[in-house]
């Protein structure tokens, strides 16, 4: 571990502040549900199909319940009612329920209500057992074919066509990649539904669908067996369907998800309440499924200046960690995000980047961490760009990053060519091999540039946390403290999908996940 730089007590204090910041948001989370949370409940029950024109059945059913003004009792309750009406399959349940006139949806007798809930709970437990069995299969494969030592080399595929993605992903795995990320189609995060089926056309990426997840995981399982090295798969649980994507990913045995408590609010202009509620349920699912989340603090310093805003990254990491822990995630599941983004034409940037990465490591000693490469100051001179990426490789191994997204020399130009990934993987492997253990050989002087900079950044992060605690998270975001982006509590997309829970709200999956 590089240097103490700061006292343990200061780090404990930062955690306490984060908890006080997050506490009031949990009132909001407890009181409300969202259309996407309710759709996730239906997906748990196996309602994963789509109706006419590809509209997911979960959307059809939830929209109908919302229009009838009864969704606040929970989709699970109405699923139970549909079963009581004699539905024999999830599809039939949807059909029966969406055909009912609103006045037929009044309460049953207390005994009937009780029985209904017990029946639905029993079914929920069965669905949960099914999910757990699938996750156990994934874990068995992971044990059979252990992964390479960290940092796990993470590369992106983004062809728009899931079958082309499979070819690229297999090639990347053969060239040494440990984690494959399939980038989503542009603006999928703003869709209030999860598209259905295998897809072959996307813009800037490939749609995240349950079937696409299945196709890619199957290919990577096959590749893992061939290479005798488990290859991880990741996707994006962000936007308006955080928890639905988390469920699809858990069910299809994904290993990681990009999942941030605030990214959607700041960078996608998704409503704050919607995001805070959705992130909780999505993280509960990740906690159960042993999915590693990747947080998105690296984005702050692509908008704000990486040197000036370094402390916002640290402050946000404590907040993200707190949200994650409250949702049951363990330290090993926290791919806390940060990046190598300081303007390379400044002096001392290697020292500054080391300082920042060492500080993150110091604050989160047991988390894998997720290190991101330079993007903002990338140049189209691919030879310089490649050298620039290699410096990030060095910082990653020096600070024992668990997950490292590799920079591409063509970053500023186009989605990576097959050879770009190969070149990045070859040199990252070299640097990791060459410098493993370097942190144990060199101690960082407590009175030098690295330590002083770490103390300065941490001090500012504490001030910001203090301010967020005193004024509240909502006000802090409103002032543009994170990523220089200002958002209001009632602005952004998706607020109309937030509903206050009825007193008899019912969600057996949340009960099971919270009890787990």
């Amino acid at each position: 571990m590089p240097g103490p730089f700061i006292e343990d007590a200061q780090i404990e204090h930062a955690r306490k502040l984060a908890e006080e910041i997050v506490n009031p948001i949990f009132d909001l989370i407890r009181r409300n549900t969202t259309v996407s949370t309710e759709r996730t409940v239906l997906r748990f029950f196996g309602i994963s199909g789509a109706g006419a024109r590809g509209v997911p059945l979960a959307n059809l059913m939830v929209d109908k319940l919302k229009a009838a003004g009864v969704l606040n009792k929970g989709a699970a309750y109405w699923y139970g009612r549909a079963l009581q009406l004699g539905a024999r399959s999830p599809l039939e349940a949807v059909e029966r329920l969406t055909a009912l006139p609103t006045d037929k949806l009044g309460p049953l007798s207390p005994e009937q209500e009780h029985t209904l809930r017990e029946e639905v709970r029993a079914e929920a437990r069965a669905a949960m057992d099914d999910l757990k069995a699938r996750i156990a299969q994934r874990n068995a494969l992971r044990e059979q074919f252990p992964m390479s030592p960290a940092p796990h080399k993470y590369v992106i595929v983004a062809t728009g066509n899931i079958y082309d993605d499979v070819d690229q992903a297999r090639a990347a795995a053969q060239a040494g990649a440990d984690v494959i990320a399939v980038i989503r189609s542009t603006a999928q995060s703003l869709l209030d539904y999860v598209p259905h089926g295998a897809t072959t056309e996307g813009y800037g990426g490939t749609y995240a669908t349950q079937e696409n997840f299945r196709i890619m995981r199957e290919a990577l399982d096959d590749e893992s067996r061939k290479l005798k090295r488990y290859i991880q798969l990741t996707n994006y649980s962000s936007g308006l369907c955080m928890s639905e994507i988390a469920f699809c990913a858990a069910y299809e045995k994904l290993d990681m998800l990009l999942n941030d408590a605030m990214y959607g609010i700041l960078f996608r202009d998704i409503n704050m309440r919607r995001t805070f509620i959705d992130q909780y349920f999505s993280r509960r699912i990740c906690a159960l499924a042993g999915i590693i989340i990747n947080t998105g603090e690296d984005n702050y310093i692509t908008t704000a200046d990486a040197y000036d805003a370094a402390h916002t990254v640290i402050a946000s990491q404590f907040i993200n960690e707190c949200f994650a822990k409250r949702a049951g995630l363990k330290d090993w599941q926290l791919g806390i995000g940060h990046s190598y983004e300081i303007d390379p034409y400044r002096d001392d940037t290697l020292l500054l980047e080391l300082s920042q990465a060492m500080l993150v490591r110091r604050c989160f000693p047991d988390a894998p961490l997720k290190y991101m490469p330079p993007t903002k100051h990338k140049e189209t001179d691919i030879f310089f760009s490649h050298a620039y990426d290699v410096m990030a490789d060095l910082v990653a191994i020096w600070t024992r990053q668990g997950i490292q997204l590799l920079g591409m020399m063509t970053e500023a130009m186009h989605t990576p060519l097959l050879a770009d990934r190969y070149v990045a993987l070859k040199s990252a492997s070299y640097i990791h091999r060459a410098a493993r253990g370097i942190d144990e050989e060199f101690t960082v002087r407590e009175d030098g540039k690295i330590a002083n900079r770490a103390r300065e950044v941490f001090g500012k992060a504490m001030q910001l946390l203090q301010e967020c605690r005193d004024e509240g998270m909502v006000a802090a975001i409103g002032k543009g403290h994170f990523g220089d982006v200002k958002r209001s509590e009632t602005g952004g997309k998706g607020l109309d999908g937030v509903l206050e829970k009825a007193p008899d709200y019912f969600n057996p999956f949340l009960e099971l996940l919270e009890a787990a």
Partner: protein
Amino acid sequence: MVKPSKQIIRPYGDRRDDGVVQLSFTLPVPLSEKAKEAAAVFTKKMGFTDVKVAAAERAADNYTFFVIYARSGMYLDYAEIDVPEVIVKKMSFDDLNAFIKEKVGRRIVVFGACTGTDTHTVGIDAILNMKGYAGDYGLERYPWFEAFNLGSQVPNEELIKKALAKNADAILVSQVVTQRDVHKDNSRQFIEVAKAAGIHGKVQLLLGGPRVDHKLALELGFDAGFGPGTKPSDVANYIVHALLKKQGKEPQDMHYQGEPK
């Protein structure tokens, strides 16, 4: 006009006119002697001579990556290269921000929305939102732009009212749905509202969408139109130059790279 004299040039590697070129590419075959020869043949087919396959690497089971040095017999007369007067190059994110700071001296206010019945925010989000499009940052990310994205299904009247309240320099109208030319009808209505509000010809009015081009936008009464493939930086550069022209800080006939045509 005197025609300039000839100036023959070739690529320069180590010595003048050696014609040395470096290439790299991938072939979808496993690494082998045959694959190397295939790379050499491919390079010769492109007209190169003295082909040296410097590196042939197994990029994956069925892909080989090559780095090649070769010579080209081609030459050209530099004097005959005719590039239309691109006076200003398209500026990068940092350069453009610095340029606004220096020339305009304040943040440029931009409003945008997908107006009428259109619910598709993909276009306006790509141009305005932080994240941007294809690695090109949206206007929200530029510190020297103050960008407001009002989203979709915004009435034309409301967009103009809100833009007026903040003294907007530019208003962006996005139109994605084009069934029965609804985008043209709605765009015409926008221009009528703009004229009634007295901002036509004063505030920059820009139209964007997959079926929009500059010519159509001009016909409809907008100042500029942006079609498919437009990046946020194209729009940002346009707005800055158009504003400087309006303020008389740049000549009316000044041209720059990537301006809508």
